[in-house]
């Protein structure tokens, strides 16, 4: 609301304290958002922070009398572009967290140095500028902001406008070209795939199912091999790619052992004496070894 009041008194040469307050609060938020965008380890978080910053900026636009752009900012940027970002993030892997560890030697320090230097320079430049008060947009927005923009857009900047149209078309076409894959040959039938697999002889039987247990049963949990070690194959390739396999085999084995223990106590039986037993405990042994 303060923003609205601020804009209502725009005609004044200096800005209202209200706007100042709003600026300092929201500006801080925007900066924090920006920083988070940069430093969050997960892309999703970055995206969200960026969205926040953009919304703040939208408010600033409004505060500066750019009503149309303010709305556009919210609708197009925060609404469309950021969503697009999120889609892609999903596509590439939401939870994939990339380490912030620098691989190129000296890159980080150089980057920081350049950043600070550049910032300092900009600050200095702005500091040189002698801008104390606003002209105000009252005159320009007298016929309404959108009308004013439209007048300019379809008058003075009409050619640029047309060209941007062309640009957008090109961009969309380009996007299609880049992402679209033409299927050159007929899709293989299941039969053919099977034959092929046999012929390759890499993994003839069907892949194992993911682990299904009392407490967890999910596609991202690797099934256990007879010796209790998890089998990567049982998880879908995508998850494997993203490294999003949860491994519960250790817990499972711990539970089994506990069960054994309890049963052994109940039956007064020395659990340690080795004797031929149906698979289970030997598996356990091997499983323990596998643990070590």
């Amino acid at each position, binding site marked *: 609301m303060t923003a609205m009041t601020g804009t209502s008194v725009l005609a004044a040469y200096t800005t209202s304290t209200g706007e100042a307050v709003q600026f300092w609060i929201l*500006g801080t938020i925007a*900066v924090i958002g920006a920083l988070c965008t*940069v430093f969050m380890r997960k892309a999703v978080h970055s995206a969200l922070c960026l969205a926040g910053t953009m919304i703040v900026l939208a408010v600033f*636009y409004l505060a500066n009398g750019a009503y149309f752009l303010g709305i556009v900012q919210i609708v197009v*940027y925060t609404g469309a572009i950021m969503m697009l970002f999120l889609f892609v993030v999903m*596509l590439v892997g939401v939870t994939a967290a990339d380490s912030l560890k620098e691989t190129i030697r000296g890159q980080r320090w150089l980057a920081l140095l350049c950043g600070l230097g550049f910032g300092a320079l900009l600050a200095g430049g702005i500091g040189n500028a002698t801008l104390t008060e606003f002209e105000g947009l009252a005159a320009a927005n007298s016929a309404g902001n959108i009308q004013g923009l439209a007048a300019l857009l379809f008058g003075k900047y009409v050619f640029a406008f047309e060209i941007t149209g062309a640009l957008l078309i090109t*961009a969309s076409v380009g996007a299609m070209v880049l992402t679209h894959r033409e299927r050159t040959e007929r899709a293989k039938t299941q039969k053919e795939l099977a034959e092929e697999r046999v012929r390759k002889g890499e993994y003839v039987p069907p892949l194992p199912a993911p682990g299904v247990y009392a407490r967890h049963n999910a596609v991202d949990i690797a099934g256990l091999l007879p010796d209790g070690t998890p089998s990567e194959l049982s998880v879908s390739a995508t998850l494997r790619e993203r490294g999003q396999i949860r491994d519960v085999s250790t817990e499972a084995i711990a539970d089994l052992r506990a069960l054994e223990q309890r049963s052994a106590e109940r039956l007064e039986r020395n659990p340690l004496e080795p004797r031929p037993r149906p698979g289970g405990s030997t598996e356990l042994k091997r499983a323990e070894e596998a643990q070590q």
Partner: protein
Amino acid sequence: MNPVNYLYLAALLFTIGATGVLIRRNAIVVFMCIELMLNACNLSLIAFSRMHGNLDGQIIAFFTMVVAAAEVVVGLAIIVSLFRTRHSASVDDAALMKL
């Protein structure tokens, strides 16, 4: 309040974005940082237009947005296809330019 503050803010955001572009490896994040920079510019443009009392600044900002949109579309498409081929979205993996 001194209108220059808007510009300072814009400068700050821009610098942050630029630094982010430089230090992040994840192509998507890099892209976001670029967007951040663009927005910073937009902010300053709008501030300008208010200072000078004409709408040209806003028009430019508008165009920036359009261009940004186009750029995002293409860029993300590139990232996707990159991920498809390399199974990674790290800009460092696209280092075929190395001699």
